[in-house]
């Protein structure tokens, strides 16, 4: 272990904290593991990493947590990271969930994977964060035939400022090289381009980062309160968007409080609100594509309804070519996860694959017709997806970076 990196900034416990916000299937879990291993093996640091836990699903939010400290310090905390120094958003659709930015303050660097970073800038009010960076990791991943997670890894290293490309290549060889030797050079290229192409949108001229480096040396942190943030300080600084989320959250960003407590919840965990999952908006599960309906071509065979796992198709009684039958009236896009089963099953091409970004307004959007009332507020999906097991396929599932 030749190197001994000095962390540019740490919290009062002496930790540099990174939070990854991602969607299952993008490889954030592996990215977090690589960052952790990088700290131990190549940076001369101590590190700890873990992901949010739960049953494993694709398309649902996943969080990753990495803590670095100097090698002589034990990392004692097991709790999720509330106030990250670096927040990494693997998919800009996640920004629609306000809790994603929770706990980020003026010391926080943020990296967002976004097709068009500029469109997302307004989400980050001025002066709220240390710096916000963007890159189109999806494009880079496709071009380099690597994966989004390695591209993000390159960007993370660049933004952290204390990791060199050589170290990233080394950790990439250690982990990916062993598992998928064939795609190693592509992944290294993905890392390089992530490192080089991440750009900041604006820089807030606040404290000089070099000052911090001097003050936040690990052996001094404990006594140096002026340059060290506490949770309260950061909470004061977080912007309005996140304030709303704070109210919903009891302790920590990972455990939103339930609407039902011990005085209001029915005993035994019984749930009398039948069918209330309809309130969930699952559109963030879509990964760029969605089915487009062309009614002129539809022969109302109903095969789409037999293949849709998400009850998206709305059939009503009507007349087709002089026969009384059930007619396809439209799609409930709130619940469509973009699996495109219907597109491949449709015998007449009445359902085709569309790129979601090109269709901000969807035609033939018909909310679930059995609803007695419209949900007051469709909640963005995001329950219950995470990592419990190192499933053998986790990291190769999405090929060529296509998401």
């Amino acid at each position, binding site marked *: 272990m030749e190197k001994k990196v000095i962390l540019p900034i740490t919290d009062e416990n002496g930790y540099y904290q990174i939070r990854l916000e991602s969607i299952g299937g993008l490889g954030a879990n592996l990215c977090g593991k690589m960052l952790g291993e990088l700290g*131990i093996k190549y940076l001369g640091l101590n590190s*700890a*990493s*873990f992901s949010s836990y739960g*049953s494993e*699903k694709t*398309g649902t939010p996943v969080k990753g947590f990495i803590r670095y400290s100097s090698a002589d310090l034990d990392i*004692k*905390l*097991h*709790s999720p990271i509330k106030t990250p120094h670096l927040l990494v958003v693997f998919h800009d659709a996640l920004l629609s969930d306000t809790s994603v930015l929770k706990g980020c303050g003026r010391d926080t660097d943020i990296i967002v994977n976004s097709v068009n970073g500029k469109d997302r800038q307004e989400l980050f009010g001025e002066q709220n964060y240390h710096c916000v960076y963007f890159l189109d990791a999806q494009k880079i991943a496709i071009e380099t035939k690597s994966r989004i997670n390695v591209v993000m890894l390159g960007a993370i290293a660049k933004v952290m400022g204390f990791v060199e490309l050589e170290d990233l290549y080394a950790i990439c060889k250690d982990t990916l090289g062993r598992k998928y030797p064939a795609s190693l050079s592509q992944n290294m290229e993905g890392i390089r381009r992530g490192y080089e192409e991440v750009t900041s949108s604006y820089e807030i001229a606040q404290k000089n980062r070099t000052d911090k480096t001097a003050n936040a040396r690990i052996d001094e942190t404990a006594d140096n309160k002026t340059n060290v943030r506490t*949770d309260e300080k950061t909470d004061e600084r977080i912007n309005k968007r996140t304030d709303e989320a704070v109210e919903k959250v009891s302790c*920590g960003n*990972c*455990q939103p409080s*339930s609407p*039902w*407590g*011990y*005085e*209001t*919840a*029915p005993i035994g*965990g019984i*749930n009398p*609100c*039948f069918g*209330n*999952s*309809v*309130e*969930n908006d699952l559109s963030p599960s879509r*990964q760029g594509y969605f089915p487009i309906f062309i009614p002129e071509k539809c022969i*109302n065979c*109903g*095969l789409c*309804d037999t*293949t*849709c*796992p*998400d*009850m998206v*198709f709305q*059939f009503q009684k009507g007349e087709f070519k002089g026969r009384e039958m*059930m007619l396809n009236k439209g799609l*409930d896009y709130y619940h469509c*996860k973009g*699996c495109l*089963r219907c597109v*491949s099953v449709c015998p007449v091409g009445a359902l085709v694959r569309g790129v979601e970004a090109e269709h901000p307004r969807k035609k033939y959007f018909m909310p*679930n017709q059995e609803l*007695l*009332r419209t949900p007051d507020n469709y909640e963005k999906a995001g*329950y219950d997806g995470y990592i*419990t*097991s*190192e*499933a*053998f*396929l986790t990291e190769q599932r999405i090929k060529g970076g296509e998401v």
Partner: protein
Amino acid sequence: MQEYKQTIEFANGNEMASMAIKQIGYDLMGYYPITPSTQIAENLDLMKAEGKTDLIMIAAEGEHSAAGICYGAAVAGGRVINATSANGLLYALEQFPVQSGTRYPMVMNVACRTVSGPLSIKGDHSDIMYMLNAGWPILFAHSPQQVYDFNLVALKLAETVRLPVVVAYDGFFTSHQKRRCMRFQHDEDVRHFIGEKNEPYPFFDMEHPITVGSYMNEPDLINNRYQLHLAMEEVKNVLPNIFREYGILCGRSYEWSEGYCHEDAKILLVLLGSSFDTATVAVDRLRKQGKKVGVLTLNVLRPFPEEALAKMLQLASHILIADRQDSYGGIGGNLSMEIRAVMQKYGCAGKVKNLVYGLGGKDFYVEDAIAMFELAEQENAINSYYYGVERGDSKQAVSEQERFFAPLLAEQTRISATVVKEEPTEKEQISENSQITRAVDLQGNKQVIGGQINQTTAMPKRLAPGHGACPGCGIPVNVNMLLRAIEEPVVLLFQTGCGMIVTTPYPKTSFKVPYVHNLFQNGAATLSGLAEICYRKQEKGEIPQGDIVFIMVSGDGGMDIGMGSALSTAMRGHRLLLFEYDNGGYMNTGYQYSYSTPKGAVSATSHVGKCQYGKQQFHKDMPQLMAATGIPYVATVAESNPVDFIKKAAKAADYAKKEGCAYVKAISACPLNWNDTPDKERQVIEAAVNCCYFPLYEVERGITILSYNPQKNGKKIPVLDWLSMMGRTKHLVKDEYKMVVESLQEEVDRRFQRLLAKSESPYL
């Protein structure tokens, strides 16, 4: 001479446990995958595939059997390891006193998780406390490093005192968080530390046969139990020596319990597991403010470290014991009760409070520890209570929730699109999409009119959208297909599995009809009871007459561990429908192989490597097992043949409400773990049908009727064509796996030929 060189690992608790197991060189692991301990078996399977260990790994159909396998192997003199959690531990519970009472050493890792129900996979200590009376020493590790160290210590202890030993640690917090750890570089050093195993009564000494497991009455039993008591007392003498010996080798020494700033502390917090480390950060903060606080944890739960604790607790004036578990109706969780007993026994004068916290994996932050220190000191704080519970918002109370849907009563679902007719009188050819259904010519068989796709779209969905299944998941597809054919009110029971998890994440539910979940050993039995009471209540006039179809939905995993319950339910002849969605694996926990996984398929517990080609056994033929119970109706269905599916579903429901048990099995896509793309799943399923891996047929009142014969239509394809469509079996295309594919092809053909023969004779 051993060097005992060590090397750094960046690993979590499960990985360190697997590393220790591999290095020790166990003979056998009997296990059943359960979160969060599953990774241990997964890691070891990977090592096995790569030729790094020759451990015999036996994936039982449930934890009870896993414990049985371990027991047998231990009696035979093998070195044996197991790993489990939560309800798995409870399911196997009766086996543990057998193991300790007959004095066969082994080691079991328990990644602690909360016990159902309601079902949760997160960590707390409600499972491990059920082990307190089992006669097993219990070591409790609060870091991945300790998991490794304790695994080594545990086996040496087990073989010294001839008792089985548990190594417990926090699920997720310790099992899944990666930390910097040290391990011995060379396996030989580990083996040298453990030493040779000595069997006082070798089982296979044929010249001196022994009887294990006598029947014992009074006065003998109490003497046997006293021997067990003495063995546990012996642990008190032996364990410190083992700890010391181990500490000399690696520089990490352990004691019965462990403290931080406890020597001069006035206020002590006692916590078990990973929370201890978090609390030390709180101690640092409070010490800076001049508060004399400290924190304690236990490294050993059995035998309870009374003397060590008494010494550490002697000087404190205020002690707060936080239990991550409750002994409901007791005086607190088990930890606090035992510590109170220790204090009384040793005359410790401090004031004691206890609370219950962190159940179901509720995160424990530094701020929580600080709050607990404050509570410890407060004079007026109530003595026993829960920390971190929420009252709830009355504005959002259940009674205030407006309904989203109208209830699905018989009027809504009686759409007359699929009608079942009894006893057709003349021979009929039913054709559908050019697929010929065999003539229904046997007296007494049911005939289904309608069942066409367009008309059945009128059926209101019993499942609401918004569930959390992966994009393209086959489970809702199959459940919806089944239910669109059933025009009576339905009651659903889901066994544990993906289908259950994604539809009912509290406080949401996707069910619009009465629904109950039970653990997957027991769903069919539960539905039996449910249905019988319904029929009784209808007889008595307590609820309205009218048909209700009772349906259990289970994955193929539930049909492994719950097969006994399902077969017995079938044999009892309850009027209900058992529906299995078979995606060929335990997908909810990250895809471990099930007994229905195709031979050769890669999974987290059947890796491919130079020493292993994937799953070793053929897929289970559940429909034939069900048919052998003599129930009136068994059918297989596939979404690629939707009309056939709908008609069979209608028939099955008709049998279930009038005659007895019906069983329907669907092959169900899992894009995540089949490792193919969601939009191609129907084609993949069609290929499974066309290669005869998943033949479509019915067994109606004992008569086999083949629904579709791909051979006749010229659609038959080799099994390999199907296997090559999925990432999990793609490797089988390679020449080196030719033998595997050939044997699978042979088995598939054999099963299909048997079906053909059965369909040609009513006597088969």
